[in-house]
């Protein structure tokens, strides 16, 4: 197979060995979950329950706060015990709903619509929106919004992202091995919804068994193919994946995949879509990798949304060493958490635990102008000059060197010999450019 790719990028050690061979496991039912009201891009959800209410598993507890928003559902049955600020999977504290479980795990009424594939596009989209599905690869864009392109932007290709280019993470990999039929059904539903003729499943070359499995399952499908992708980070970034899989370039300065006739969804999202459409099952759990060198028993876990990180780590038998850093997501783009009392969200693909040594950071030193950041930037920006200009408050120049097009993949910071915190500087640049534009 010929593996496709994109210009730029890096080759961090993939570190998937810790959890790649562990099948997806069901943890014990959590006694308590904390469901953040903002687990997605867009408006926060609005609670429709109050403290003291009894809720069933899958019951809606918060409704979408607008079109670009999603509802939230109870991921265990029990009682609402608090609505307040709690630690958030993307760091800091955010408004969330706490449910204390009753241990019964009784579901709301689900259906089994065997003719689910005959449903209209509108009905499919409605069920997806009702199930509270957002992108499960990390960014968390509401899925029904992605599936509602304007009339003048026809979609011809749906791409499923099975790249999982973040080191350590293996949740998507295990899902592809263990639930390939659900992924394919989800893809077909997505294609039907946006009237796309073609489906592509993009998988990185370090998962040859997954590539082979899908090739086998899809050998009679004319419109769906598997595209093998080179092992390179950030191969799974949306724009880079679209380019590798179709040769199309999403326009910069805020262009969307739909501008080039594509929709990209994570493989986990495809499974959620399948379950939402067939069973009207809301998104109440996801697969997450709990991994790291010091995790005693790294695993891929089918965890309820809102499960606390400490419960997941306990299910993996804790750590062998003192914890240095706790990361929600992958090591390249994940968020460092200040406490294990943080819940996981719909976009939480991993819980990575590092020891003290792995967590140590070097001090920034002077930029050598070596240009390594320029060489690896998948967006073709000049990270070092963005950083140095924003440092001296020259916001116009930072804009000129491409700050607004940064996808925050972290490749530049990864290769910098001077340990410059390029992503943080570029974040500052983005904020200041927005301020400049709005004033």
């Amino acid at each position, binding site marked *: 197979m010929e593996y496709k790719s994109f210009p730029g990028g890096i080759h961090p050690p993939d570190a998937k060995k810790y959890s790649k061979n562990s099948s997806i496991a069901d943890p014990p039912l959590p006694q308590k979950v904390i469901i953040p009201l903002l687990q997605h891009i867009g408006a926060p959800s609005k609670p429709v329950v109050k403290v003291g209410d009894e809720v069933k598993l899958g019951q809606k507890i918060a409704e979408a706060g607008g079109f670009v928003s999603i509802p939230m559902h109870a991921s265990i049955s029990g009682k609402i015990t608090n609505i307040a600020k709690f630690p958030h999977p993307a760091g800091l504290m955010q408004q969330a709903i706490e449910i204390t479980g009753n241990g019964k795990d009784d579901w709301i009424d689900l259906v089994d619509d065997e003719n689910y594939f005959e449903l209209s596009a509108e009905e499919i989209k409605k069920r997806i929106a009702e199930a509270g599905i957002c992108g499960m690869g990390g960014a968390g864009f509401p899925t029904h919004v992605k599936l509602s392109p304007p009339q003048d932007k026809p979609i011809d290709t749906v791409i499923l992202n099975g790249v999982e280019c973040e080191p350590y993470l293996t949740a998507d990999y295990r899902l592809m091995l263990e639930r390939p039929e659900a992924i394919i059904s989800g893809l077909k539903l997505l294609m039907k919804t946006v009237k796309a003729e073609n489906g592509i499943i993009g998988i990185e070359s370090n998962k040859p068994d997954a590539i082979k499995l899908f090739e086998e399952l899809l050998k009679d499908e004319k419109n769906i193919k598997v595209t093998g992708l080179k092992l390179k980070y950030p191969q799974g970034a949306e724009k880079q994946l679209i380019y590798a899989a179709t040769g199309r370039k999403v326009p910069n300065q805020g262009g969307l995949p739909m501008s080039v006739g594509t929709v990209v969804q994570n493989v986990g999202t495809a499974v959620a879509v399948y379950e939402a459409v067939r069973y009207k099952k809301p998104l109440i759990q996801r697969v997450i990798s709990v991994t790291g060198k010091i995790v005693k028993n790294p695993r891929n876990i089918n965890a309820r949304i809102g499960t606390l990180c400490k419960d997941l780590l306990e299910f993996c038998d804790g750590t062998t060493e003192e914890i240095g850093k706790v990361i929600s997501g992958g090591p390249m783009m994940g968020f460092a958490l200040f406490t294990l009392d943080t819940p996981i969200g719909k976009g939480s693909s991993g819980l990575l635990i590092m020891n003290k040594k792995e967590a140590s950071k070097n001090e920034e030193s002077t930029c050598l102008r070596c240009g390594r950041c320029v060489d690896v930037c998948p967006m073709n920006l000049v990270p070092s000059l963005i950083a140095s200009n924003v440092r001296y408050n020259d916001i116009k120049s930072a804009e000129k060197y491409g700050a607004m097009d940064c996808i925050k993949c*972290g490749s530049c910071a990864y290769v910098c010999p001077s340990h410059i915190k390029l992503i943080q500087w570029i974040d500052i640049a983005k904020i200041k450019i927005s301020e400049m534009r709005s004033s």
Partner: protein
Amino acid sequence: MSQIYAVSAAPHIKQKISVSSVMWQVALALTPALLAAVVFFGIRSLELTIYGILAAVITEALFQKIRQVPITVTDGSAVVTGMLISFNLNVASPWWLPVAGSVFAITIGKQIFGGLGHNPMNPALLGRAFLVASWPTLTTAGWTASAPFKNLFEGSINGLKNLPSNIPDVITSATPLGVAKALRDPAIISRDMAETVMNKLADMDTIRHLFWGNIGGCIGEVSAGLLLLGAAYLAYKHIIEWRIPVSYIATVFVLIYVFGGINGLFSASILLPVFHIFAGGLILGAFFMATDMVTSPVTKRGRYIFGIGCGIITVVIRLVGGYPEGVSYSILLMNIAVPLIDKYTVPKPFGEVRS
């Protein structure tokens, strides 16, 4: 409340690379060529190199002490500067020559601008320019030719020396580029004689000697082959990148092929550009000085422009300028142009809609 962990922004993993690992690897890559110099020119080349390094390191430490900034001499950058200064000297130089060059390079070339990362020009080349301007005879004349080279050129060099008058200092020396330069001047050498010698220069034997080091020249320029070995290591480690040296050397090749012959355009043998690549400081300059991170463009297109610019200036100086060798001035001149090059070669972001 349970335990609180320290947080930081992504990415949470980091390639194992630092400023000092980069600099020490450059120093390591220069070592084979230094060993070659010891073999061909004797232990004196090592002594001179150590003087250069010590002077550079001590100067940097003193200057940083005066500036009241952290002393960073262990990062290896001053060591590299000192090495390169000495590499540009001939082995018969007095001990104070590399010292003077290093002191100038570190103070005026580097620290006065704010230290590593802020200097507009390569400090070692600036130091060399200072030495050439201050002690022209010590730095450009009286090269020591190693024995095989003497034999190779005995006839032709003697032919040059026996010419009655008008022989500038540079001709009495025996660097290959010095000879090549003289051949272009009909006032020094007859056309027939020039052609004979030119054929001798553009000859596989000569080139083989240039490659392995049996020639006269500076300490660090002696063996193109071992310099390339070091450069290959750095390229493999992604410490130098290929665009600058490749575009630089390719430009020199093409221009010498077109303009290098003494009988008009395209009159040069194909081996003449090869001779020009391995003679003098081109290999050292292209791989170790033009690629100096601080003083070369950060953009990819900029690096091509930089390399091509260095190539053009080098050839102009070698063929029509006042010196036999133009590598160091070409790089210094292009160093000055770097901010401008960077400014006009900002890459288009991925997905830029071209109008």
